[in-house]
């Protein structure tokens, strides 16, 4: 993975110094909260329900054990002993003091981490495929491109006061494990006539008006990737709406202009921008790519797994994915224990995962947008030892992609933007469906919960989606069906009137019962929904 050189260190250190000074000026009253807010947001610091919340960047979801241990250290030293992994592969701490923020950023900088641009109307964390470098289906590792984009977007002087936030994802496989089509820019590295290029999808997003990003350019030569991205951003910065914050994302601009007109404007700007020489030479890409060279994996390592422990076997079947190198596997650590808080991990658990990553995964871990953790390069012969350690720490729930593997935003328990609590709903649903046999019978069922229309829980992209709303002062929950954030991308359809907290759990049970009654061989829930439509489900829910 990428290691900072002296330039990277100097830039992060400068940012820490800048923000430390901005905090000083805020505490001394030299700047108002209104002036300070965009500055602290550009350093990932929110003011939330209970305290300040700090969102630390995990660039494209990749980190090593030393960094993971620092995340545990921060939880212990500055917070309440836990962190929350997010739907953009980052981590959040909920109990941060403003006066501690400079010290925290210094601690992070000591291990090549930061909170730069994890909020604010600027380019956010570049996300990617959590199985990059390990999955058999990728045509290349997308992360060197993500790193190139990360550096290009960091402290970008022209794009730091955009109309709204800007999220970019980069993948390199046809299977979309990063919800790429629901980003402001989604880039897929593709192959054409023996060459690699970048397909640009621009204008996706969730929130109040969810949209799937249309294909803007099917093949951008990789040498032009930064210039093309710059052109996309410049058109947005100049023409994105600034009159209404709910209409300020690039998806609205593209929707209003039409994809063809947006493309035309980008092409014109690109022709100009290309002449400026902002694209780094291949040597820079090669320098970065070399740091993502595959770890030394022994392909002759034993390929069989001893399944005699039945609990281990269950976990292997659900949570362990195929690695491109024989004798190895991708371990998915679920942070969704039944009845637990989705995405949360204690500092002890984070330390344990760091140890496992170091010992068993060539010192590499990943954060997924489904709020789970990945050990990407584990020898099959080590799986049992890994599982035992995870199991002892409450990290071996064998529910990857099952109904209890819920994506849930922090909701009204933590977030000042929320209208309803999301975590208790997740807990109740997981508890209702706690029987593993029942979950496996239901199969792949991606359930996502957002506590407000901002959709940080990605509910529009849920096979089953839940949106918490405020209905005359009480919490109410809208149910939607048929969304997907994968390559079969679709937006969920609302079923009808909403429910209270217990009502929504019952409604979901009626939905899953109906699925079991309607499905044909091999059909996932979302496939059955797409085949039979809303009507049978609506009838099952509302009678």
């Amino acid at each position: 993975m990428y290691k900072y050189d002296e330039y990277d260190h100097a830039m992060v250190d400068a940012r820490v110094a800048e923000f430390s000074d901005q905090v000083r000026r805020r505490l001394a009253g030299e700047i108002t909260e209104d002036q300070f807010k965009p500055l602290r947001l550009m350093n990932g610091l929110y003011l939330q329900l209970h305290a300040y919340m700090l969102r630390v960047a995990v660039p494209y979801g990749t980190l090593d054990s030393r960094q993971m241990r620092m995340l545990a250290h921060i939880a212990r030293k500055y917070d309440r002993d836990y962190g929350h992994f997010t739907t953009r592969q980052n981590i959040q701490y909920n109990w941060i003091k403003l006066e501690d923020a400079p010290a925290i950023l210094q601690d992070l900088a000591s291990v090549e981490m930061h909170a730069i641009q994890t909020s604010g109307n600027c380019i956010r964390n570049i996300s990617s495929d959590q199985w990059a470098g390990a999955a058999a289906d990728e045509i290349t590792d997308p992360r060197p491109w993500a790193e190139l984009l990360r550096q290009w977007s960091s402290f970008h002087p022209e794009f730091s006061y955009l109309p709204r936030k800007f999220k970019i994802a980069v993948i390199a496989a046809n299977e979309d494990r990063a919800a790429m089509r629901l980003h402001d820019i989604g880039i897929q590295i593709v192959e054409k006539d023996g060459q690699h290029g970048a397909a640009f999808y621009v204008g996706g997003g969730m929130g109040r008006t969810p949209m799937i990003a249309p294909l803007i350019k099917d093949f951008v030569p990789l040498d032009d990737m930064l210039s093309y991205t710059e052109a996309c951003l410049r058109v947005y910065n100049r023409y994105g709406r600034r009159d209404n914050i709910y209409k300020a994302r690039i998806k609205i601009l593209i929707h209003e202009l039409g994809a063809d007109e947006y493309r035309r404007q980008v092409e014109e700007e690109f022709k100009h921008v290309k002449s400026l020489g902002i694209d780094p030479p291949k040597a820079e890409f090669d320098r970065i790519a070399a740091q993502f060279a595959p770890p030394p994996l022994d392909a002759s390592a034993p390929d069989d797994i001893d399944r005699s422990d039945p609990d281990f076997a269950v976990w292997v079947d659900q949570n362990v994915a195929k690695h491109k190198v024989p004798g190895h596997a991708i371990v998915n650590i679920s942070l969704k224990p039944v009845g637990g808080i989705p995405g949360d991990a204690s500092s002890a658990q984070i330390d344990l995962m760091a140890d496992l990553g170091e010992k068993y995964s060539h010192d590499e871990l990943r954060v997924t947008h489904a709020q789970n953790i990945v050990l990407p390069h584990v020898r099959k012969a080590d799986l049992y030892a890994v599982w035992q350690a995870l199991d002892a720490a409450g990290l071996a729930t064998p529910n990857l992609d099952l109904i209890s593997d819920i994506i849930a935003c922090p909701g009204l328990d933590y977030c000042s933007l929320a209208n309803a609590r999301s975590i208790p709903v997740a807990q109740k649903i997981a508890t209702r469906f706690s029987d593993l046999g029942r979950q496996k019978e239901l199969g792949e069922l991606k359930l996502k919960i957002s506590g407000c229309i901002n959709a940080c829980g990605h509910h529009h992209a849920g096979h089953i989606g839940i949106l918490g709303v405020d209905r005359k002062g009480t919490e109410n929950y809208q149910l939607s069906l048929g969304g997907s954030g994968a390559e079969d991308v679709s937006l969920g359809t609302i079923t009808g009137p909403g429910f209270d907290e217990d009502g929504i759990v019952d409604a979901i049970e009626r939905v899953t019962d109906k699925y079991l009654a309607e499905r044909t061989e091999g059909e996932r829930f979302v496939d059955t929904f797409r085949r039979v439509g809303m009507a049978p489900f609506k009838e099952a829910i509302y009678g």
Partner: protein
Amino acid sequence: MKLLTGNDLKTGFVTWWTGADWSLHIEDAADVGEHGEAILAAEEGARRVNAPYIINGEQTADGPRPAHIKDRIRALGPTVRPDLTLKPADPAAGDWVI
């Protein structure tokens, strides 16, 4: 009743105007009546509070109770982590919020 609330600038903790200063405990919150805006402006200007705002509440036997669940969660802490709230030992505290 009208309650004035905000966050402590340095720590971010939720605070409640008592009539004389700021408290972490909603039990100490005072009814600011018609004077909320003036107090808010003065306290925010002096940086004794950050992001203050005025809410509706009602006086109950247990003390002031904010009208909106969001502010009750702010007053106590996250409903899903009773151990992190201001009343970790009180099993009934969550009922007060909901």
